[in-house]
């Protein structure tokens, strides 16, 4: 719904142009990284010189990147699955039951915001170190569940809040046992939220650097850590190629959500 039109058409134009500039500013990093991956030069330059795919080949043949990709994918898959299962139950309980200390729970769900990732990283390093899990992939699982679970609970709670409780009551009155209500009504209606929480949880875990850096060990480096280690030695367009792949994968995932769920509900 447009606001009052008189004398505001110019305002509207200016605001649109402004939004365009802001967006351009935000994606500058992407606009620099992606072209540089296709450069024919040996150093990262903008604008890129020539065109080649050799840096993608270089990325695919660097063992650290391949290994890191596998580890990151496995950690993201396991952590996301655990977060979604636990998160669904917790979110349902949070939305449908009254709690003493509900405000506290909502505060705790903001843990990732409250605890700086460097602090979380150091703390997990202490704890998992004491348990002998540093450098073990199960340490990464634990750390990434702690990272993704609060987010999953928040998205899923929003999803469950959107299911009118009258639908559950209607199905009970119609003769459905609670397990049938869950299977036939709640789960299907949560599907968009489950998809969104899974995809974003996966991306979040896949992209995490700081915590992983303090928890992973030599044998189980994630892709972001591999990138970090690589650039400590030399910056060449291989880095841009890996980054480009990561960005494209994320864009595909987000586009899937946009198609199926719509992004509007993810904003705000």
């Amino acid at each position, binding site marked *: 719904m447009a606001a009052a039109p008189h004398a505001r058409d110019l305002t509207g134009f200016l605001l649109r142009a402004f939004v365009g500039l802001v967006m351009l500013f935000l994606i500058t990093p992407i606009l620099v990284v992606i072209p540089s991956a296709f450069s024919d030069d040996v150093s990262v330059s903008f604008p890129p010189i020539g065109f080649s795919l050799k840096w993608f080949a270089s990325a695919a043949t660097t063992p650290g990147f391949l290994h890191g990709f596998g580890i990151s994918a496995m950690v993201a898959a396991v952590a996301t699955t655990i977060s979604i299962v636990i998160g669904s139950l917790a979110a349902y309980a949070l939305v449908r039951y009254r709690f003493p200390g509900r405000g506290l729970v909502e505060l705790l769900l903001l843990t990732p915001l409250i605890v700086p990732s460097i602090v979380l990283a150091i703390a997990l390093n202490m704890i998992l170190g004491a348990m002998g899990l540093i450098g073990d992939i199960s340490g990464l699982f634990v750390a990434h569940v702690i990272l993704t679970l609060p987010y999953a609970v928040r998205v899923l709670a929003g999803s469950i809040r959107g299911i009118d409780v009258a*639908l559950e*009551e209607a*199905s009970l*009155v*119609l*003769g*459905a*046992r*609670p397990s049938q209500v869950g299977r036939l009504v709640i789960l299907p*209606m949560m599907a968009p939220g489950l998809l969104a929480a899974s995809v974003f949880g996966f991306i979040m875990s896949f992209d995490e650097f700081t915590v992983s850096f303090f928890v992973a060990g030599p044998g189980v480096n994630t892709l972001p850590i591999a990138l970090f280690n690589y650039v400590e030695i030399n910056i060449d367009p291989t880095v841009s190629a890996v980054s480009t792949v990561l960005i494209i994968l994320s864009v595909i995932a987000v586009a899937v959500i946009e198609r199926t769920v719509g992004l509007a509900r993810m904003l705000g």
Partner: protein
Amino acid sequence: MLQSLNTAATHPQDDPVAVGIAGLSKRFGHVVAVQNVSIDIERGSFVSLLGPSGCGKTTVLRAIAGLERPDEGSIRIGDEVVNDLPVWQRNIGMVFQNYALFPHMSVADNVGFGLRVRGAPASERRMAVAEALEMVRLGAVAERLPKQLSGGQRQRVAIARALVTRPRLLLLDEPLGALDRKLREQMQLELKLLQRRVGITTVMVTHDQEEALTLSDRIIVMNAGKVVQAGPPDEVYRDPRNAFIADFIGTSNFFSGEVVDRTAETASVRLVNGAMIAVPIVAGQAEVDTSLSFFIRPENVFLSSGKASSDEGSLRGCVLHVAYSGAVSHCYVDIGLPQPVDVLLTNANRSTPVQAPEAGDEVVLSWTRSSVTALTP
């Protein structure tokens, strides 16, 4: 076809009471929602729980369905006390306020849900669903999603879904509240005729007095968690037990004045504008020199332009405004009291046309004495 949905046939029982509620109480935290409510609902009847929001009517309905657990009291359906029976074993049909149709299921799947969770075979389910949709004339939209239906269609799907499992009782929670005025009147007739045809005992919750009057065999008026009056619609309308009910159901002209004289059957009351009104009373009501309140319904006040003709009761006044609404008009007459008197006029096209009053006209109001109802404080 409709016969097979007749619950009287499938539950042949002699007890005329289909639902018995005894001493029901329910608190939410420190708020008493329902307090010692007892109601008997006759088999096959249409009963309304009527009251303002927060009066506890919905809690009573939800307790019957099993969606609220009573703190005290018992609920009997048929000859079975159901207090400890889980919701899903009560075999009740219920239409929710906004219909609560499953948005991810087609109309047919919505209607078939009750049979599906009971494990009915697919073929039987298909037939029963088709029959139920036929009953509400929605066979053509079976494959649509709820959001593709109009409000009236959604309401009919909700009714079909509630009836397809042949429940022993139908509960309606403000079933027409989401529809606009015109459609609501249409659906009222449809709902009533359907209920009578199927013969199912029905309990409706509503805050809309007109809806309760129109649809019910019996109205149970609730206020502040308690039953304040129960009876057939015309009884509740004509003889409301107190001022709250007289105000809540229908429109009333309230008056209040000093009793200056009384006989066994009539009190003479002087209003603040000096007018004397004869009010029929019963023994014990209205001492001389005390105040007495009473009311007259707008349709029982008659307008004339001439002299005060009736000795039953009359007042002079000046027309303030005539609110025309087609079939009827409300004429507001200033008689020197803070509130104008509301007079209902019908605009029927009779052989002898009546001159419609206009704002500013001097008029005489009259009524029969039996139209004046005293209120016990």
